[in-house]
């Protein structure tokens, strides 16, 4: 461990090392659904994975990091988050997640608001999260706006894909946003898409700037990418019947690239979801009827949907705890745990790990870029002190785009300052 830590520290101190890095001897978790590979090697160069697995040769001249006794894995990809949009969600002034007083909705593009210096990103990165889907939330419309896929690597260029998806609420939250009922939400959706068509056919004649316009001009413009299937439409629904209604939209709008979000009752309609080839960003570990649209919630949901052939990514959607993305690994581990409970349906380790790595990447059509250690992907690599799904395990080194990431955070500095709570020769404010 010491050798590895020294190596990682050395990498940070002296970036001018060999362009190729080989991490050897660790248990390798590729993130593509395959199981862990003992004594494997991960090689990356110029920020990209060259190879990962057993019997991978170490290229001549590579910087070698010894990871015996460690695990080496793809970094986690947060399935749906607000990372970079708030310094503290409860502090309104710092929070860009929603805009209740804005006249706009679908046009909202969160990319320019992402703050890569947020201390939360720092903590999540040091927890093994290397990229994330970031979404706005709704306020006053069923449309939240356009989310992005970001990298958590230190540096100014956080946004990997801006305007990566549009987010819409169609369940109880959608009903509330549309004025009080699900049918009203559907009218709002259909009308918005119809107006987008109007805008396309005649932008000059399209108003959308009047105070009472139901759809503003930029919103109509933004929805064209959804209509054309160029931008996935993430639809948050939970109830089985709501899922069916959303899947039926494809009949009217065949180009729609649907993604279900939440889908706690997905297991009841798993075959329909699979047949429609619609992936799911699932609420990971919810098992309570916290609302009437979630009465059939069970921890087996994710696994039952996967068994039916649905592509599933885990997320902190519907999690009642503050959405720390670094705990996704705990969720995935629990989905393995339930394989031992009679009547439950759980995931094997490889698929559980994939649900927090390649799963979200596949949903976004970005699995050629992020989410696994397969050749050509961004070298987002985490070295762990044990099985990454275990509660006690934590990263000992994190590489994002091949770059070693800092190993301290505001949290670790607070910890060190208060390791002994008593004041010293000077107040705590002088201790750093």
């Amino acid at each position: 461990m010491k050798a590895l830590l020294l190596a990682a520290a050395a990498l940070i101190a002296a970036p001018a090392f060999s362009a190729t890095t080989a991490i050897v001897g660790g248990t390798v978790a590729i993130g593509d659904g395959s199981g862990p590979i003992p004594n494997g090697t991960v090689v990356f160069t110029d920020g990209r994975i060259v190879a990962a697995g057993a019997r991978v040769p170490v290229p001549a001249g590579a910087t070698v990091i010894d990871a015996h006794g460690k695990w080496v894995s793809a970094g986690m990809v947060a399935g749906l988050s607000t990372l970079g949009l708030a310094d503290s969600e409860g502090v309104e002034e710092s929070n860009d997640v929603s805009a209740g007083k804005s006249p706009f909705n679908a046009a909202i593009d969160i990319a320019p608001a992402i703050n890569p210096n947020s201390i939360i990103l720092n903590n999540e990165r040091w927890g093994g999260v290397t990229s994330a889907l970031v979404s706005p939330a709704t306020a006053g419309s069923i449309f939240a706006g356009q989310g992005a896929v970001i990298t958590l690597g230190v540096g100014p260029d956080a946004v990997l894909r801006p305007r990566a998806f549009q987010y819409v609420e169609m369940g109880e939250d959608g009903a509330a946003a549309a004025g009080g009922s699900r049918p009203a939400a559907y009218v709002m959706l259909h009308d918005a898409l119809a107006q987008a068509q109007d805008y396309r056919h005649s932008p000059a004649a399209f108003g959308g700037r009047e105070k009472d316009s139901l759809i503003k001009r930029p919103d109509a413009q933004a929805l064209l990418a959804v209509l054309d299937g160029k931008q996935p439409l993430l639809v948050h629904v939970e109830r089985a019947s709501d899922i069916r209604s959303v899947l039926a939209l494809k009949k009217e709008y065949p180009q729609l690239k649907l993604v279900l979000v939440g889908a706690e009752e997905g297991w009841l309609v798993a075959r329909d979801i699979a047949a429609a080839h619609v992936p799911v960003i699932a609420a990971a570990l919810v098992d309570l009827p916290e609302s009437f649209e979630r009465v059939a919630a069970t921890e087996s949901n994710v696994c039952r949907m996967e068994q039916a052939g649905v592509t599933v990514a885990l997320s902190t959607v519907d999690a009642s705890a503050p959405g720390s993305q670094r705990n996704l690994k705990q969720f995935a581990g629990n989905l393995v745990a339930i394989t031992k409970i009679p009547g439950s349906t759980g995931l094997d380790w490889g698929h559980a790990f994939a649900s927090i790595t390649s799963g979200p990447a596949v949903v976004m059509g970005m699995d050629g870029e992020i989410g696994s250690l397969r050749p050509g992907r961004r070298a987002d690599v985490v070295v762990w002190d044990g099985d990454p799904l275990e509660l006690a395990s934590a990263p000992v080194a994190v590489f994002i785009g091949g770059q070693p990431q800092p190993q301290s955070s505001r949290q670790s500095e607070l910890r060190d300052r208060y390791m002994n709570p008593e004041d010293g020769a000077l107040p705590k404010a002088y201790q750093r």
Partner: protein
Amino acid sequence: MIHTLVRASRAAVTVTTCLALMACTASAPPPATASRAPPPGAGHGYNHDPFPSTYHPYPGVPTLLTNVTVYDGEGGRIDHGAVLFADGKIVQIGQDIAPPAGATVIDGTGKWVTPGVIDIHSHLGDYPSPGVKALSDGNEATAPVTSEVWAEHSVWPQDPGFSRALANGGVTTLEILPGSANLFGGRSVVLKNVYARTVQGMKFPGAPYGLKMACGENPKRVYGSKGREPSTRMGNIAVDRETWAKAAEYKRKWDKYEKDGGDPPTRDLAMDTLAGVLAGEILVQNHCYRSDEMANVIDMSKEFGYHVTAFHHAVEAYKIADLLKANGICAAVWADWYGFKMESYDGIPENLALLQKEGTCAMIHSDDQNGIQRLNQEVAKAQAAGRRAGIDIPDEVAWEWLSINPAKALGIADKTGSLKPGKMADVVLWNGNPLSVYTRPEKVWIDGAMLYDANNPKLRPVSDFELGQPGSGDVK
């Protein structure tokens, strides 16, 4: 028991109350002389226990768990151990225990046995599932001082959350608190995690009441937004102190009446609760995030002569671990919640470990219908964070955060919270190491009755609400 003061005024309570109060019999002074007359007002006070527990243990069989790893809940560990319980009580723990005649013997090779998990901070029942407005009964957010309300009168015994806490979390005892909108939120109630038709049927026999108080952002936000006091932290403390001053006066009147007789003072239900705190009958459970605010509350408690049993959500407890320890106050915390509001901004995952290092009473809590299902996992994360910071806390010691420490802070450590002979047989058999993510409860006993068995669908409780719904009876 962290702080049960039993004062002379306690003699005023009725006989039924006495049974329901912690350590009553043990602490009541013997009469000085047989002929001494009781004070004129004694026995003419009010009933301190008008909603008595009707909980009764369900039948069990003498059970011996063998070949298990035992965490006894008080820091002890037995490898290749055995646990015997009968008649609802722990009989013996050790390595070689001969099964009594007729006992059920369960070979637990590869499994762990612990006392049932205790959650000191839950809103199950008062914020139940489904979380609809009609069932939202946790905050009487109409005035900042509502110490007259009792959480038990909001608890919906059909909350499906109780079953999940049992089956997935091994939770056998929990405290239900009012919310934190108010400075004085009301009384809490301690429950056995056993479904009943009434809340009285769940009430933990003999557990003292708690008073929920709250510092910080919530009260000042809720009332500030209504244009009334408190709208600031200084307003919080001012209203707190005015209220305690009234409570002290109220208590003086009742004490005088109980001593001298005469006209009984006018009842005030809010003041009843606070007088109970000042008398040491009711334990203060204080929502407070920031270290500087906890220090203010500690001074306030000294000013008025009460004791804070535990600060809940104390994300900054690590900054004043020494102060908490010196004042005999526990910290009930999450493993890693932080940053979701300004007063939680300085939360760190090493909080529990730093408290343990200082020797401060500390424990995990959930405040959450999902978190309560995984408190063992939260402890594992907190323990691991400590280990990485060089604070090595053995598994069996970390388990105190789930068992004896919350039992102490609830005033029930003489009854549950560890596997000591004579205590309630609140026992979990885990299907592996309970500090591993891959482990779940296999069987749970409460007062010796098996109330959950992963291998027996008939021992999986289904609340009235879930009956006949899609997925009813499913493994959740």
